[in-house]
Structure formats: structure tokens, C-alpha cells
């Protein structure tokens, strides 16, 4: 029972990442009508914002090691520690959450640049061409990251205070031994918070209303004299920020490397399609669902019967769903109907 619960939580975690990425993808596809294969790269850039911030705050210089006295030995000491002592160390410790201050503006800029510089020229072109050009962009971005950061995963630890595990067992009465890493809990909670704010934004603001209208009937909204173009740019930037934040927070869970974006991209698209293209709720639901499914399928008990199923279960489910329920779980009529 414990094992199942842990896997469930693991799955929710991963599912949260999937849901966040799928949410952004669906927003872009539903409003702009653009298939963005570079969306995974946005997740990647977010994660590497965390990496970059960490690198910056740990810039060090060689300093005499006070502990070794009989010859001159040097250790690396971060400038922040030299200048600010304890506070400096604290900043380094909290590098990942603090990097959000760097990531959000960066992602906004990247999103804006991408939309204005490339995506807007592809609104009228075929889906195939959109896929191809954004695929090219994804490769370019990935290779740039690889050039500057190398090919190996770069560990970006969470703050010390949350590096341990939370005694969930005691909270929900399942015994002291049942624990779950703090950071992963924080990830889950913050993801849900982000998703809720996006939905709140869409449902409770005028801007959001226009967006939702645009999702159902783009032409009409244009005829109503609303400058949908600027709103598209903002939406794209919003999707970029969401993906970026998801990336930042995920960095401690999975040390980022340059092909992180591509790894998540395929699954994200599969999820968007399973959830139903054009359905935000579908994307989120499918994200969590498939994350959990993948996790449960990785359990040793399951593996004993069907070895290796966890690797392919998502794709099998996607195939089955696409064949039996072509509109996805929650897709709406009229969106990409064949």
C-alpha cells in the first residue's frame, strides 16, 4: 500500500511537470493555432536559468585553505561568501528558488522574441511547416545550451532546508515511516498553484475572456475589433513563462542536461492529444493521469508481469485513446475534427 502511495505521489510530481508543459502547449495551439515543437526548449531554458543563476552565485576565487597549515593549499571560495559571509552562503543555498527572479524576465523576453521574431510569420502557414520550423528552433536552442554548458547533466540542488523528506505518514495517519521529499511536495503544490492561477486568469479577467473567445472562434474576435495580435504575443509569453517556471523548479528533481527539452516534448504532445487538443482542462488532467500511470507502471510488482511497460505505457495509452476517442478525453467539437 505504501509503495503504491509513494508511486502515486511520484507520478503526481512528474504529472505536474507534464501538465504545466501541456498547458502552455494547448494555450498556444488553442488560441494561436500554432503547433510549437520548441515548447520543450522553453522548459529547457527555464531549467538552465536555474543552472546559470547557480553558476553565477557560486563564482569563486582561489583562497588559501585555512585548515592546511604546513604548505599553501588553495580551495575555491565563492565571492558571495567572501563578501557577505553567512548571508552569501544563504543566497547560494537558495539559488534555485531565487533563480525565479532571473527566470521570469528571461522567459518573458524569450517568449516575446520567439513570437515576434518567428512564430507570428507562421500563423497562416501549414501545421507541417510550423512543426518543422519550431523543430529546427528547438534543435538550435538545444545546441546553444550544449555549447555553453556541455553535454553532462548539471546537478542543481534544492535549498538545504528542504533537502530532506516530509513525514507525510504522520500527517495522514499512515505511520511514521512513510516519507516523501520536501522539494517534490513543494513542486507539486506550486504547480497546482500555477495551474490554478492560469485558470483564474482566464476565467476571471477580461483579457482571459478574450482569450477564451479567441480559442473558440479566432476570426470572430478579430472582426469585433479587438486587437487580438497583441494578445497573442502576451499569451505566448505567458505560456513561455509557465514552461520556464516548471523547468526551474524541476531542476533539483532531475539534473538538467541539454536534451531535457526534447525528452519532455514528445510526451507533452502525446498528452495534449490525449487530453484533447484545444482543451486546457484536458491537457492538465491528461498530464497528471499519464504521469501517475507511468509511475505506477514502473513499480516492481507491475514490472514482474510486464517488464519494461513503464517506458511504453504512455504511448500505448495515447494510441488507444486516439483510435477510440479521436477527440481526446475532453476535446471539443470543431477543434481539429477530421
Amino acid at each position, binding site marked *: 500500500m505504501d509503495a503504491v502511495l509513494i508511486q502515486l505521489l511520484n507520478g503526481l510530481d512528474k504529472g505536474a511537470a507534464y501538465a504545466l508543459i501541456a498547458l502552455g502547449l494547448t494555450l498556444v495551439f488553442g488560441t494561436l493555432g500554432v503547433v510549437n515543437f520548441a515548447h520543450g526548449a522553453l522548459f529547457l531554458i527555464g531549467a538552465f536559468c536555474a543552472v546559470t543563476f547557480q553558476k553565477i552565485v557560486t563564482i569563486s576565487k582561489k583562497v588559501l585553505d585555512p585548515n592546511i597549515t604546513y604548505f599553501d593549499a588553495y580551495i575555491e571560495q565563492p565571492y558571495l561568501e567572501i563578501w557577505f559571509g553567512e548571508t552569501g552562503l544563504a543566497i547560494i543555498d537558495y539559488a534555485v528558488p531565487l533563480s525565479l527572479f532571473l527566470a521570469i524576465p528571461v522567459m518573458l523576453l524569450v517568449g516575446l522574441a520567439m513570437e515576434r521574431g518567428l512564430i507570428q510569420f507562421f500563423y497562416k502557414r501549414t501545421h507541417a511547416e510550423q512543426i518543422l520550423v519550431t523543430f*529546427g528552433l528547438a534543435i*538550435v536552442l538545444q545546441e546553444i545550451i550544449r555549447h555553453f554548458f556541455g553535454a553532462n547533466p548539471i546537478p542543481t540542488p534544492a535549498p538545504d532546508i528542504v533537502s530532506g523528506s516530509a513525514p507525510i505518514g504522520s500527517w495522514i495517519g499512515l505511520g511514521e515511516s512513510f516519507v516523501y521529499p520536501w522539494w517534490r511536495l513543494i513542486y507539486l503544490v506550486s504547480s497546482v498553484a500555477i495551474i490554478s492561477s492560469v485558470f483564474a486568469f482566464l476565467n476571471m479577467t477580461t483579457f482571459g475572456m478574450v482569450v477564451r473567445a479567441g480559442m473558440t472562434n479566432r476570426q470572430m474576435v478579430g472582426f469585433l475589433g479587438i486587437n487580438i495580435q497583441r494578445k497573442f504575443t502576451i499569451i505566448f509569453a505567458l505560456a513561455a513563462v509557465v514552461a520556464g517556471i516548471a523547468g526551474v523548479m524541476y531542476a533539483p528533481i532531475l539534473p538538467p542536461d541539454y536534451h531535457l527539452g526534447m525528452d519532455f516534448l514528445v510526451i507533452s504532445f502525446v498528452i495534449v492529444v490525449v487530453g484533447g487538443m484545444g482543451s486546457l482542462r484536458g491537457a492538465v488532467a491528461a498530464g497528471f493521469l499519464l504521469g501517475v500511470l507511468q509511475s505506477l507502471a514502473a513499480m516492481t510488482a507491475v514490472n514482474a508481469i510486464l517488464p519494461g511497460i513503464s517506458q511504453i505505457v504512455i504511448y500505448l495509452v495515447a494510441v488507444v485513446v*486516439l483510435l477510440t476517442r479521436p477527440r481526446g478525453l475532453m476535446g471539443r467539437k470543431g477543434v481539429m475534427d477530421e
Partner: protein
Amino acid sequence: MNIFSKKSTPRLMLLFSIGVLTMPIWLDPIGASYPDLLQKFVIFGIFAIGYNILFGLTGYLSFGHAVFLGVGSYTAVWSFKLLTMNVIPAIIFSTIMAGLIAAAIGYVSLRRSGIYFSILTLAFAQMFYNLAYSVLTPITNGETGLQLTMHDPRIIDNALSRTVETGLPSTDLFGISMNGYSGFYFCAVMLIIAFYIYLKIFNSPFGMKLKGIKSNQKRMKYIGSDTRPYLIAAFVISGMFAGLAGSLMAVTDPLAGAERMQWTASGEVILMTILGGVGTVFGPLLGVGIIKYLENIFSAINESVLHNFFSFMPQWGENSLVAITAPFVGEGWHLTLGLLFMLIVIFLPGGVMEGFQKIKSRFFDKQSKEDSSASKESNNV
């Protein structure tokens, strides 16, 4: 329309065959005539023209064709291990196997069209990659890849006493070892045969119907054609071409790995097809030639080569130029490739062949200019 469409097939095939078989000669001046690279040209040539039958003619964008490449490789290596080092059974089994898997994947994926189809093929590609990497390891040997060993049964070879004293045998065509140039010539002959079939398909009623599907699938149905079997046929045929290419990879280097099946590997053939000119007869081959040739050059350049190149400049000039160009060469070849891809899709989606057409019409075709302005006038009535 294709500038070569007026030539009769036998003449074209003759020219093509001569061109391919003499590649070691005319590629020598640009330093592209060694066996490894030549083999890559023809093997990817087969892959690309097969892919063009699907993507170029029907417009369906598949990310899964690398799967068939992998299936071809694995099947060939198993043929070498179990039966014989003779390449003929290997390539036959590979092509058939790839065709079967393509039929299965195509049957499912083609129930949808457009972007749904593409994502389905994407899902299948990842699935098969994962299967090869970690699930079906008895067959694929997972991460390490499938290789020849001393203990391979090689039933037929042993029965015919075709064994070697020491080490591993090499692949052969009835006694001719398939290494180096002889390997290339075998693959070249395969390309010629494949190209013949490809040309026939292009100019056949079947090919024309595929073009109709790309142009207006709805109308195709309403003129009485059931589009689904045509699409599945195109998918399977292109899968078989890919399987053949995969088997030839194993013929020239008896090794099969899972990374060959990743969907990003499909990206490479998509790029080649688009760069050359999707939907044209020669576009894919052009694309293969350009990409593989550039890859060959760019991957081999490293910093010292760059320094040599820019050594005529003063030190600061040399260093800054090297710093600017370094990310794009060597390992950075993929960056260059990605940028090239984007540029082509943005500015010249018809590829190099479209570029040729534009140049041709601007400089050579005064006649067509008059024709087009005349027809424009009659349209305005």
C-alpha cells in the same frame, strides 16, 4: 513540374546509373570520394527517396521512419548471426520485416491525418526506441547494440563450410567482401534499383493519385478513390525503402543500435528531403548529398583548423573570428544544421529545387513570362 519529366525513363536511368557508379571519380576533386562517405550518400539516398514517396507525394509528415531504419539494421544483423554473412538474405529479410512493421504502424497511424498523424508516428517512434533500448534487450541488446560474435550460429555458412580461421567474418556477396569500395558499389547498385522503382512510382497513376491526396484529399474521395489504402501503401513502400537503407548500414558495418530509431533521427531525413526539395524527383538526393557532404566537412573542423584558416589576419582578428565560428563546427555541426533547417523552411520551403526553378524562370524563361502574363489577363475578364 520537373525539368526532367520530358526525358524518357531508359535514358534517365542510364545517366543516373553512370552518375552513381562513377561517384568515386567525380567526387574526388572535392575530397568526397572515400568509401565511408560514398556509402553514406547512397544509403541515405535510398532512405530519402523512400521518404519522399510518403511526405513528398502525399504530404503526410511522419516522424517514425527511423524505426524502419532500425528494424532493417537489426534484422540484417540477425541474419548475419543466425544464417549467413551473405548480404542477399539479410537485405531481403530486412525489407520484408520493415514492410510488416510499417503496415502495422501505418494501419493505426493513418486512421488520423495531419498533425494527429504526425504525433501518432512520434509516439510510435519513441515507443519503439524505448522497446529497443530497454525492453526487448534479448533481441536488440539494448544500449550496447547488436553485434557479431564468434559464437554466432551462422547455420548456412557453417553448413557450406564458409568459415574463417580467426576473428569475425565480414559481410560478403558470394565471396566478395563488402568492405570499402566493393561495399559502396553494392549499395550503389541497390540505389539504382531503388531509384528505378521510385521513378516508376512517381510517374504512375498511383503516384498521381498520391499527389491528388496531398492536393485535396476531400476531392479525391469524392471522385471515387478510397484514400486510406493508397496512404497505407505509400507508408509501407516508404518503410520498405527505409528498411533497405537500414540493412545496408549493417552490411557496411555489422552493428545495430537503438539510437538509430529515435524520432530525432527521423528529423534528419526530413531535413534532407526538405532541403533538396520535397515532392520533386531529385530533391531528396540533392538534399542527402548536400547535408552529408557538409556534415563531413563541418564535423571535421576544429579550432586549430579554424586558426589555420584565419591565420592571415592579425592575432586579435584571428581570435575573434575563431571565437565566432567555433560554435558552428565540429560538435556544433548540429547547431549549423538546425539553423540551415530553419532558414530553408522560412525562406525557401521548396528547397534547392525551388531555388533552381526560380533562377531558371528569372534568367532563362522569357517565354514563360509572356505566357503567364497572358493568362493573367484572361483571368481578369
